Each structure stands twice: as structure tokens, then as C-alpha cells.
């Protein structure tokens, strides 16, 4: 027997599920996680190219990296041709490489798929394209799922956002890259379903009569909206779908830019471009780990010695040179999640000269992400308009994805559709459950 599974390859979290025609079974794919059915979309590759995902990747990363030793060696990276009017010379380029670095932690793999500028990365001696990274992650996911099911998996229905990218060409390219990665990971059949449509199918299990439903799938990487007619499996219909590149990671970035940077010297350091460059790189999870070079350490040491915001720059040094970036982003994300249920929270990090403590309120958070609210509201209204329905004709608004729990957006939906229509769903499993149903039927579920 071979299985067909649904895989929600999310920006922050992923999941695998199977459907037997009666009920959906979410696979406990990450037994080390608090929710075993949810696996973090995180990939860790060691120097000897052993790969791990999810909580195992996080634990290996912490064990191997935090507060570790470093040893930088100068390596020839290439050369540049410099041409002028009457001269031409070649200049060698060197980079400092940490030869004790035990591995690379990679997250937001799905975001990388839709970034035109990001084609891949060097991991030690090998170059991994974006497709290679997705393939590695999916093959490990497949392997774990097969371990649980005890049978090979030959087909998969992968979720995809309504829009990987605003550019049609890039959107198509991202889907094809993901499709190819899935084939290379060992799946014989690969098809896709829009994530909000998948979430709708999960919701359909709970209704008894046809409804016009808005799916508000707000995750870590994108916001996807779909207006769908549900309730009659023979007569499902997608009236309209829309999306925008706004989601949880953007809110994390907003918090860091507006609230965290002053702890690392922002506003105190002026006229010092090298240091300002480091400070401005903090919100960029891809750039921060690359800042740990001897030149930067030297620059920071000199500034601290000169008494330039020493407490803040010492904290910056601690953040960069002790591989605390991942911990830092996690603390910010945890603070953001707290604010979905509490009025105030603490974002703190006490380690290696960092003494970060920030009391952060929901009011502050809502102020910081206010400009996103306008964009999100516009996409919701545009999609409703495109569907040809009036808000009053909508019977239910189903929220899914971690960011959909942010009260500011729930209030927005309530304002548009009315409180009684806005319904929650299982934040992390509704999409994957719908994908599993689609995989079982392996035919288009809606027109």
C-alpha cells in the first residue's frame, strides 16, 4: 500500500496529514515539539552535511553553536577586473571564513522561494540552490512521515499561497521550483492546492448547509484570502482569491526595527557607517549571522573602547559573536504571540553582555503594524469585491494561520463582516487537513 499525503510547507511551520475517506489524521511528525503534529520549517545542515529539521534542528543548532569558539581564516574568494580609460588590473578578493562553524541554520525556506534576488547559498563547500534546500527539507519530512505510516508515500498535495509573488513570472517559477524539489525528494506524483482552499475544505467538514465563506489564511509568510461557496461537495466554487506578502515575519521585523534596535545602539551611534550597517542588519535574519567577522569585531571593540554607547555596542557584539540571533528572533516572536492574548508582555534576552528588557504592550504593537492593517484591509475588500458578493452575503469568515489570531485583524474582520461571522479554526492544522482531503480525492476539489 502506498499513501497520498497532504503537506503544508509553511513559512514558519509545516505539517503532514493523511485522509482515509472518513477522517483526517495529522501525523506526529516532530515528536520533540510541543505540538508533535507541527514541525518548524527550519533546516540545519552540519559541516559534514548531516541534515535535521524542526525541533531537532533547533536543538542541534543550540548545542553546537551558542557561545562556541570561532577561528577566522582568510580565504581567496575570487577576483575583480577593474577597467579604466587607460588601465586594466585584476584585484583579488578575500573573505574571512569561520573554520570552526559547525553548521548552518536555515529558516523561512518558503520566503526564499519567492525572492527573485535569492537563488541559493554556499553551505561550506557546496552550493545549495533554493530548490536544493526545499528538496532537503521535504525529503526529511517524507522520510519521517513514512516512518510513522510504515509505508512508502508516493504522492503529495502541497499547499501554496494564492500568490507566491506579485510578479506572475516569479510566482510560476516558485511553484515550479517547489514541484521539482518535491519530485527530487522522492514523490512520484505532485500537485498543488491553494492554502486557503485547503483550509476551506477542513471547515466544510463542520457545516451542514451551503455557505459563502471567506478564508483568511494569515501565516508566517503571506496572507491568503479566498471567497468560496462550500457545503455541497458537488457544487463548490471559488468566487475570488487574493493575497499579499504581509505576514508574521513582517510584524517581527517591525517590532525589531521600532523597539529593539535602540538596545543595540540605534539612535546613539551616529556618523559611524560600519557600525550603523551592523545595527541596520539586525532585523535581517539572513544578514545577521554573516556579520561575525574579525573586522567587525575590531570595529566594535574600538568604538566600545572609545566610550561610544558601550553598553549597547557590547550587546550588539554579544548578539553577533555568540550566535544569539536565532534566540533573539524567537524571543521577539514569542512576545508578539503573547500579545494575541495579553495586553502587555516582556521581550527579554539576558546573555553575554546583553541585558535586553522591553515592556511591550498591545497598543504599541498595533501602532507599529498599523500601516500593514491598511494594506490587509484593502486586500480583503478587493477580494470581496472581486467575488461579486457583498459582505452581508458572506456567511462565515474562517481564520487560520498564526497571525490570524492578532486581535487587530480580528477586529478589522469583525468591523467588515460582523462579530458573529468571524470564526477561528485550528491555527496550524486546518490547511494541512484540507490538503490531505485533496490528496485522497486527487482530483480538483473546486471549480
Amino acid at each position, binding site marked *: 500500500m502506498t499513501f497520498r499525503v497532504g503537506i503544508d510547507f509553511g513559512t514558519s511551520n509545516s505539517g503532514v496529514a493523511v485522509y482515509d475517506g472518513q477522517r483526517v489524521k495529522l501525523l506526529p511528525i516532530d515528536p520533540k515539539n510541543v505540538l508533535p503534529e507541527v514541525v518548524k520549517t527550519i533546516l540545519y545542515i552540519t559541516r559534514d552535511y548531516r541534515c535535521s529539521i524542526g525541533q531537532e534542528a533547533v536543538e542541534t543548532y543550540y548545542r553546537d553553536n551558542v557561545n562556541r569558539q570561532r577561528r577566522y581564516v582568510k580565504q581567496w574568494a575570487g577576483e575583480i577586473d577593474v577597467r579604466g580609460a587607460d588601465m586594466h588590473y585584476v584585484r583579488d578578493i578575500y573573505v574571512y571564513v569561520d573554520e570552526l562553524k559547525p553548521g548552518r541554520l536555515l529558516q523561512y525556506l518558503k520566503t526564499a522561494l519567492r525572492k527573485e534576488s535569492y537563488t541559493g547559498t554556499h553551505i561550506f563547500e557546496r552550493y545549495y540552490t533554493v530548490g536544493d534546500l526545499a528538496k532537503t527539507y521535504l525529503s526529511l519530512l517524507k522520510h519521517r512521515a513514512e516512518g510513522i505510516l510504515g509505508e512508502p508515500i508516493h504522492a503529495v498535495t502541497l499547499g501554496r499561497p494564492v500568490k507566491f509573488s506579485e510578479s506572475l513570472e516569479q510566482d510560476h517559477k516558485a511553484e515550479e521550483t517547489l514541484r521539482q524539489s518535491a519530485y527530487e525528494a522522492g514523490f512520484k506524483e505532485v500537485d498543488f492546492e491553494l492554502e486557503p482552499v485547503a483550509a476551506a475544505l477542513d471547515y466544510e467538514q463542520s457545516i451542514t448547509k451551503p455557505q459563502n465563506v471567506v478564508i483568511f489564511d494569515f501565516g508566517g509568510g503571506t496572507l491568503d484570502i479566498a471567497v468560496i461557496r462550500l457545503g455541497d461537495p458537488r457544487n463548490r466554487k471559488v468566487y475570488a482569491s487574493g493575497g499579499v506578502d504581509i505576514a508574521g515575519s513582517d510584524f517581527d521585523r517591525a517590532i525589531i526595527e*521600532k*523597539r529593539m534596535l*535602540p538596545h543595540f545602539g540605534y539612535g546613539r551611534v551616529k556618523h559611524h557607517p560600519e557600525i550603523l550597517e551592523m545595527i541596520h542588519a539586525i532585523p535581517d535574519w539572513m544578514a545577521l549571522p554573516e556579520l561575525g567577522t574579525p573586522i567587525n569585531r575590531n570595529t566594535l571593540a574600538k568604538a566600545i573602547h572609545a566610550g561610544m554607547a558601550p553598553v549597547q555596542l557590547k550587546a550588539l557584539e554579544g548578539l553577533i559573536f555568540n550566535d544569539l540571533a536565532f534566540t533573539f528572533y524567537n524571543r521577539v516572536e514569542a512576545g508578539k504571540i503573547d500579545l494575541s492574548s*495579553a*495586553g*502587555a*508582555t*516582556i521581550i527579554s534576552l539576558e546573555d553575554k553582555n546583553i541585558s535586553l*528588557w522591553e*515592556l511591550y*504592550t*498591545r*497598543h*504599541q504593537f498595533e*501602532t507599529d503594524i498599523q500601516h500593514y492593517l491598511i494594506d490587509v484591509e484593502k486586500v480583503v475588500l478587493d477580494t470581496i469585491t472581486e467575488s461579486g458578493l457583498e459582505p452581508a452575503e458572506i456567511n462565515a469568515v474562517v481564520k487560520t494561520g498564526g497571525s490570524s489570531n492578532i486581535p487587530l485583524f480580528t477586529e478589522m474582520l469583525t468591523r467588515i463582516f460582523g462579530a458573529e461571522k468571524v470564526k477561528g479554526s485550528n491555527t496550524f492544522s486546518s490547511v494541512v487537513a484540507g490538503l490531505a482531503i485533496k490528496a485522497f480525492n486527487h482530483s480538483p476539489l473546486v471549480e
Partner: protein
Amino acid sequence: MSFSNKIDEWIKEAETRPESALTIVKLIAKRLRELTGRNEELLAENIALQNGTLVEEYQKRIAHLEYQLDLLKRRFGTDESVLTELPMDSTETSTLSLLVYNAQGRVLRIEINPDVQTLGRITDEMINDSEQPRLLAVQSNEEVLLLFTSGRVSTHALSSIPTVDSGGAWSWEGAALPDEPRAGELLACITPLSRLPLSDFFLQVSRRGCVKKTMTSVAQSILANHYLGKSALQKSDQPFDVTLCQKKDLFAFVTFEGHLIGLDVDGLSYSAEERIRLTSSDYVVGSFMTHSNESMLFVTQTGKVIHRESHSLELSKSPLAKGQALISASRLEQGIRFIGAASVRDEDQIAVLDATGSLNVYLTEAITGAGSIAAGGLILSIGVIQAEGGKRANP
């Protein structure tokens, strides 16, 4: 953003959602408490810096670290540059030696062959000055500390003590004399010293159950002045053992008449303190550090073995406790007396020296299973040979 702006924002949150006010107050109060504590620490440190005590403390720490480095260099018999290149498993090249030493400072060093049960025999008189010989298993690349009854100490590399042939007959005259006791003093004990950099205290126990700990941060001064102290309150008392330990360790000692005392190292005094109420005929015969993954082994003169789990050790809080009785009063009246105790694992071996001078090795699992040791005469002394080649803490 200025701090006052932040406060304005917190107030706005409280105004928008009054239920948040309580959360904010709680979070700020918690932070205030943390900061108050930290401020107090900083003020104390500032005062210490101003009056110079902290500078002295740092100087002592630096001196202590320098000494530890020196000790490591000597242990590996190499200089600093080579030390950094050493593989972590460099100690694999060392072998395990059993030291048999008497109060006169004579030390027989026997290389242990794990397959041989009978190590050899001492042909001389076994008991001199009412003191029985004692046993200690150590790595051949160890540094050992000799503690004399006067409180004097000296350190020696084990490699400087010649080995004697295993399986032979030995006499004390042929034994090494690394440091001859001075007039009026005897060799109290020998203890391995290489764990000094990883230890917090020297812990001493005297024959009459006085216990004293000394910080290892002053080790350099102790070893330079060759004096650790007696850890005894009465003149007639004398040191029995010294061992290296850490703050969280648990220490135990057992007496001739079978009383067991467990002590939390962290709670012990820096000055000698009597921790057991002993009869005039009773005295300490064995001491050890106990760990959760080990068990306790007690041996009587006649070879009877009492084996207990380490969690059964009751920690004594009062200064003059009676201790846990290992045998009943009737057995005591019958003349049962203890000669040693140790913290062991099943896979460890026990070296046993009996009154005939025979030195034999037994597997712990075997003797705890049998409940006794079949020796040629009364047992005088025991020593633990750890299964990992003596690399566990506190052998």
C-alpha cells in the same frame, strides 16, 4: 524613543484596555525587584573595589589560575604551547596504579593488571604505630598530595614514585619514601590532586570526626607553604583524610563502630567542626564523596559487606549527630567493627589488603552479591579501582 514616551504608551494601553493595567504593573514590579537586587550587587562590588578587597580577590584568583595551569603542565609533562595541541583523550596513554602506603610514609606503587586477582603480598609487619596501611588507586600521570598528621602537605608526581612488580612479595624497606615524615608526625593520607582546577574545596576529616573545608582558590598558598592544617579540635586528634570536592557534593564518613554521617558540602564550615558524637573507643575509618549513580559499600574487619543505595544516606544537619547505625547494638557487642567504606559502581573493583599481607582484587558486583569478602585474615584496608580507569571524580 525616550523612556518617557514609552511610559506614555504604557499608559495609553492601560487607558484602552484597563485589564492590561494590572499586567503592566506586575511586569514593572518584577523588573524593579530584579533591578534592585542587581543594584545592590553593583553597589557592594563598587564598595569592594573602592576599599581594594576586590582587587586582592582578583589577584588571588589570577594566582590560583596560574597555579592550576602550572599543575596541568606538570601533569602532562609539557609546556603551554604543546598543551593546547593535546587531544582530549591524551590521558588514555596513562595506566592505573595502586598505592599501598603506611603511616611511616612508605609507598608501594603497583601497576594494576585488570585480569589478575592476586596482586601480591607484603611480607613485613602490617600494623605500625597502631596505623594500618591504606590503599589508593590513581592514574599513573597523577599528581598526589601527601597530608601528614601535623597538617603539613607536599605534592609529588606519581611518575616519580617507582613501581614494584605485581604478583611479588614486597617489604616496606623496599618501598619508596617520597617525603619522610618529620619527627612526631605520620603520613595521614594520600589524595590525587589533578582535579584541583575543577574543585571548589579541600575537605578534611579527622579521626574524631571533625570536618573542615578550605577553598581551593587559596591552593597556591597552601602548597607553597606546605601547610593545610589538621582539621582537628583536640590535641590528641589527627587528620584522617583530605579530598577535593565541589559545592554541590555530598560527603560521608563511617566510623569503626559503624556509624555513618552524611554531610552537604555547601553547608560545612571553613573552620574545623566536630560533626559526630563518638564514644571514646570510636574513630573514623572511611570517608568518600557519594553520587546519585553510585552506591555505598561498607566493609567489616571480618569481611562482611554492607551495600546501600546512595539515596539512603541521611544528611546530618546538627553539629553533633550520632549518625546512622550500620549494624545493630547486639552485633556491635559481638565485636563487629568496620575498616573501610567507599562509593562504588557495580563494575568497579575493590582492592583488599588483609592481615596476612595479601593484596587481592574483587569485582564489586561479586562481593555485594556474596555479601562478604573471603580474605585470608582480618581485613585491614580497602581501595576502589574505578572501572573507567580512575577518571571519575573523587576516587
